[in-house]
């Protein structure tokens, strides 16, 4: 297959539109990867701005800035924008850029679909954000305010804004499914000769598995929100008890999507960290094979733990016990991963460039998020933790210091390969240290708040929660501002600086480092020969 695509290379390389047309019509995996990453960065800043509104309102008790209705719109939109706009597109962007380079393929398998799956996103988010933006100008009832989970009957109470959210989710789903198909097909069909499945870099493995998760669950979400749509506008009663429906059924369907979704946002992060650690430890990844099996086990388990998000809805005893045990089991493969990462570092020869710093912070802070996750699995204790700030702290530890830190580690790691210039290492380290400290000031006190009894999604709180909320808000403002340093670093590295070599990092191994920096628009037109000497892990070398 890869031979066919290389046959007419001169012909399809000839046409190079410039300006806007270049980006609109591009089918090149590197350009589409860049589009995804830039889009994700814009969404990250937008979602972050919403978080700033939330933390500003919660800075002191009492309502000062926004009314409760708008506050609820902020929490709802912050989650939707961050999950579907920032984290997921960032991983797809990284996959677009790096998967073909890592497996020695000339491009993605389905380049036109690749273009389409990106260009759906700006339209999807325009639709998603429209009710909120119009609301700011006094048109309509504002954005959705029922939380990103859109639980009925609350989500059906609002105005017609729910229709915008649902249509936007459908579009994002189409985009995600096409992206996932593309990545799976590329990985399964376009690997260079000798790049066997068990020689693939771990980032490629985690994305292969993530791709299957996406295909499996995005249609489930689409189904759930479509039922919401018909309940709201066409008088069906899927979730309306008065009409014979069941509001809890929505939660089951939603979380059957929602839990695998959690792993969609963390498995590629595992992959990135597994690439970075060996490079800066100058030592092969420890336990490559068990890493692959652990990833697959986590993916499988993600399908049978969904109801741990709803222990308080009144499930039968047997249901609660099953979901408790299944959830606890996830700690085992996740533990294997953490132990393997520490073993990778052990007796290595480490240096601490920015990507490594973010990867190390990922391991520590993601593990803390994993610990609180294990606590949340204990059903009787969950009766206390559920829907409090303890949960908010938990999922921000796994999503911000987990997924987002891994994305930043990946960006610093591969940025010289993309732009051909080294980023400013000193600024990178400053960005890291400010982020790593402030993010803990931001989220760690939220554990205390939750344990002390503060529910989540409230715009105002009793005065005994004042101290930790203020500390958390200060951490939030610093963390938010620190990300502007990141934007500056990326912008600077895109424009110039110290030239990067093809190898970039002393300890880096893998096909992506065998091409020059910046990676030319077309790479691996002739497939490279792959043996153990170029793989990142070299498990079989010893």
């Amino acid at each position: 297959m890869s031979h066919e695509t290389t046959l007419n290379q001169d012909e399809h390389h000839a046409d190079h539109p410039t300006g806007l047309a270049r980006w609109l019509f591009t089918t090149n995996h590197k350009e589409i990867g860049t589009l995804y990453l830039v889009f994700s960065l814009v969404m990250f800043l937008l979602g972050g701005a919403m978080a700033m509104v939330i933390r500003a309102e919660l800075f002191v008790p009492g309502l000062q800035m926004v009314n409760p209705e708008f506050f609820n719109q902020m929490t709802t939109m912050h989650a939707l924008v961050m999950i579907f706009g920032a984290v997921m597109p960032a991983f797809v962007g990284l996959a677009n850029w790096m998967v073909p380079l890592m497996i020695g393929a000339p491009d993605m398998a389905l380049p036109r679909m690749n273009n389409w799956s990106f260009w759906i996103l700006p339209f999807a988010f325009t639709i998603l954000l429209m009710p909120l933006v119009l609301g700011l100008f006094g048109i309509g009832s504002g954005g959705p305010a029922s939380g990103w989970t859109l639980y009925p009957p609350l989500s059906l109470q609002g105005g017609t804004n729910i229709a915008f959210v649902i249509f936007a989710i459908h579009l994002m789903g189409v985009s995600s499914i096409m992206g996932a198909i593309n990545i799976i097909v590329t990985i399964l069909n376009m690997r260079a000769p000798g790049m066997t499945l068990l020689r693939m870099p771990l980032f490629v493995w985690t994305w292969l598995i993530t791709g299957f998760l996406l295909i499996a669950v995005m249609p489930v979400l689409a189904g759930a929100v479509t039922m919401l749509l018909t309940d709201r506008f066409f008088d069906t009663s899927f979730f309306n008890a008065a009409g014979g429906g069941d509001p809890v059924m929505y939660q089951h369907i939603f979380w059957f999507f929602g839990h695998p979704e959690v792993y969609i946002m963390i498995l590629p992060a595992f992959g990135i960290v597994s690439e970075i650690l060996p490079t800066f430890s100058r030592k092969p990844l420890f336990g490559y094979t068990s890493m692959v099996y652990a990833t697959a086990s986590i993916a499988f388990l993600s399908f049978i733990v969904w109801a741990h998000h709803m222990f308080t809805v009144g499930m039968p005893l047997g249901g609660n016990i099953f979901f408790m045990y299944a959830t606890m089991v996830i700690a085992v493969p996740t533990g294997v991963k953490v132990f393997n990462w520490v073993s990778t570092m052990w007796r290595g020869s480490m240096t601490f460039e920015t990507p490594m710093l973010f990867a190390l912070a990922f391991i520590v802070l993601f593990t803390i998020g994993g610990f609180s996750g294990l606590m949340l699995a204990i059903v009787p204790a969950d009766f206390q933790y559920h829907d409090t700030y303890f949960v908010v702290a938990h999922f921000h530890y796994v999503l911000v210091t987990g997924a987002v830190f891994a994305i930043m580690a990946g960006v610093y790691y591969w940025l010289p390969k993309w732009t051909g210039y080294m980023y400013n290492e000193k600024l990178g380290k400053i960005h890291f240290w400010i982020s790593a400290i402030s993010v803990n000031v931001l989220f760690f006190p939220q554990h205390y708040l939750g344990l002390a009894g503060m529910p989540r999604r409230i715009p105002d709180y009793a005065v005994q929660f004042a101290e930790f909320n203020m500390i958390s808000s200060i951490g939030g403002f610093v963390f938010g501002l620190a990300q502007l340093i990141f934007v500056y670093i990326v912008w600077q590295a895109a424009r110039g600086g110290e030239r990067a070599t093809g190898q970039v990092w002393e300890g880096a191994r893998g096909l992506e480092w065998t091409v020059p920096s910046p990676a030319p628009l077309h790479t691996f037109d002739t497939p490279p020969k792959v043996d153990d000497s170029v793989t990142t892990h070299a498990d079989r070398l010893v």
Partner: protein
Amino acid sequence: MKRTNELIVALAVMAVIIVVTWGLFAVGDNMPGGVTPFSKDVYQLHNVILAVVTVIGVLVFTAMFTSIVVHRKSKDHEPAKFSHSTAAEITWTAIPVLILVIMAIPATRVLIDMEDTGGADINIKVTGYQWLWQYEYLEDGVSIYSTLDRESNRARQIGSGVDVRTVENYLLEVDNRLVLPTNTKIRFLLTSGDVIHSWWVPDLGWKRDAIPGMVNEAWTLIEEEGVYRGQCAELCGKDHGFMPIVVEAVSPEEYRQWIESRSSQQAADNADEPADVQQVSAADELAANAEQG
């Protein structure tokens, strides 16, 4: 030589991590122990699992930071070549499994205990509305509505000019408290009149969703007299943050007196006014009809 080096660093690193961990525990709040047998069980489970993850965390982070201190290029550390060890991987799969099994046993026991709502002396029906709670004492036909108290409600408005710190129990006070007897098994039947709410008083040790069209069950047995405060825990619209729950636990004798005064007052109210004016809910109507008939 190198091994001693690692060991010394590891001990120092562990000391630092333990001090940091101790500090994190010292400055923050922990879960309340509560006033029911169940809440105390939950508190104990919480502390055990917290201790387990803390010990694991200290060990893992000690190994990690020891490596960061010792195995660095700037100290000319030569990288080792090993890339797997089946024995190690089996060990660190098996030990967590063992820990989880040990954790699962008490968790399951406490959970089974919570599910056993039989043998209750009093049944209370809790109905969530946007944004207040209705409590019906099913045996005595008493029904009360419980809303955020007036002072908090005034202070919470934007531009109210009231310093909320001067309001006693800001956002955690209601007009009518849920009065319950101590040392009595009380069963709750929870439902909702509109959207999903969640009834939560931390000192009782649990929360349970109040869902329209469904009736959830839970129970409690309060061992100490006192006032226990909580809030709605499931997002239920714009005033989700403003529908507190206040339980006043009194001795069974005091409780009887309160119920009697309340039900005679309620009967008087119903007799005074024509039934079609005062119908707040179907439940009230039923209770009124029963008394008049």
